[in-house]
């Protein structure tokens, strides 16, 4: 008897714990939730656009999930309940195949050199990154910003010798902003987003590796109508304005 009672108490506690963490969905009634998965570099702009969308659609809550594009693709394929996906590159969007409905390019991004405030190593162009003694940090070739950096360097016939190949733009910016590195190669929008913590130096070779951002409503979206409306907002005048303010280029 006592055993049974202890067990039921355990089971009850587990159920309560699970309920309390909010695993239940709440699509019913007038409240509606739109889930948007977007690449980390879109954090600022999409937070702003989500707010606009909520203001225009009464009773709709926009839930935003940011992360590396390949992580997000993996999550969507594993059944994460996303309605819209905005990728930092076409390669990851392509991985979704049919699951993404009619992907459209909505922004582009180019590389820029980020240096600590005051530019202690005196970097002026891409060539300077190969100067001896310059501590350079780039994205690893395995991640999109690293691929772009590599192709830019290759077309300029330069061999970059970074002291570290980071997993993400954030890691590169962190090392530059702290002064640990003399220079890093990231996207224009990242430099802009970092504010006064880093300075940006544009270089002409960047035009050779423009990164295009596609967006799509997802086939399995629970809110397919809202999903399409969100995509329209991003592609529309207001969306493009917000993106341009953040430094993104035209698609």
């Amino acid at each position, binding site marked *: 008897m006592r*055993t049974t009672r202890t067990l039921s108490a*355990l089971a009850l506690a587990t159920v309560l714990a699970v309920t309390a963490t909010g695993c239940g969905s709440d699509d019913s009634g007038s409240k509606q939730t739109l889930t948007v998965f977007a690449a980390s570099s879109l954090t600022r702009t999409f937070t702003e656009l989500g707010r606009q969308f909520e203001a225009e659609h009464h009773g709709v809550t926009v839930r935003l999930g940011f992360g590396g594009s390949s992580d997000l693709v993996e999550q969507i394929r594993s059944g994460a309940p996303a309605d819209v996906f905005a990728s930092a590159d076409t390669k990851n969007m392509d991985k979704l195949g049919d699951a993404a409905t009619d992907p459209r390019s909505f922004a582009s991004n180019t590389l820029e050199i980020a240096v600590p405030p005051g530019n202690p190593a005196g970097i002026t162009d891409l060539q300077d990154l190969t100067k001896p003694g310059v501590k350079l940090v780039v994205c690893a070739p*395995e*991640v999109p910003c690293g691929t772009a950096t590599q192709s830019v360097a290759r077309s300029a016939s330069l061999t970059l010798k*970074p002291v*570290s*190949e980071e*997993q993400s733009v954030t890691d590169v910016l962190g090392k530059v902003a*702290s002064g*640990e590195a003399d220079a890093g190669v990231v996207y224009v929008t990242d430099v802009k987003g970092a504010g006064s913590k880093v300075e940006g130096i544009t270089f002409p070779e960047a035009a050779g590796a423009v990164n295009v951002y596609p967006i799509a409503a997802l086939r399995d979206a629970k809110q397919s109508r809202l999903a399409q409306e969100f995509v329209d907002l991003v592609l529309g005048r207001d969306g493009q304005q917000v993106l341009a303010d953040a430094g993104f280029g035209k698609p």
Partner: protein
Amino acid sequence: MRPPGVGLPRWLYLPAGLGAVFVLLPLAAMVSRVDGTHLVALITSPSSREALWLSLRTSAASTLVCVVLGVPMAVVLARTDFRGQAAARSLVLLPLVVPPVVSGIALLYTFGRRGLLGHALHVVGVEVAFTSVAVVMAQTFVALPFLVISLEGALRTAGQRYEVAAATLGASPSTVFRRVTLPLVLPGLVSGAVLAFARSLGEFGATITFAGSLAGTTRTLPIQIYLERFDDPDAAVALSLLLVVVAVLVIAPASRATVRHRRGTR
């Protein structure tokens, strides 16, 4: 054979079993995703071997540093009384509870170029950031508490009676430490060192924050796995398996030796 003892309440086995499943199932799931045909090729690729070799080297070095610094720390904590000892112990164990990334940031603010000691180090020509030394430092920082806590426990359990006996036989404090204290707590020291090695081997957050990530210099096995995950999930899974196997190979013999040692002296 273990004597039957008083027995356990039967309901205890349910949560115990659930816990075991919770730990083992993800491992099994990972093994099931391993691409058998390419496993050997993935594990023996130059980048994998480089990362593994770096991980083993740095983990061994940080374990050594942990022993050299941690043994005296544990002895001071276990055998002396001083003001603020409780606070000192909490601070020493802090890296256990702090997220590794925070440890990395703290190290950066200390030994980084613009850190507390960074300038002084720069003047004497020492730059640790982005070097394998930084990897060892990050690993030592997070692994040291494991050694200290397990050795301090062993010292307290062993008590001071043998040390007192040795002193009355004419042994100086150094002799007592070398010939009595250390041999008595050797099992605790070994298991502490193994824990420290395992923690170093798995270290990720502090390393990537403080040391960066460059093949052959700072890109340890966990960082390689994290990186491969984007590009080549099959390789990431294969390397994860490799890491698990290496960890098991290190831990299993050491823990068996510890158990045997305990049985032998009791």
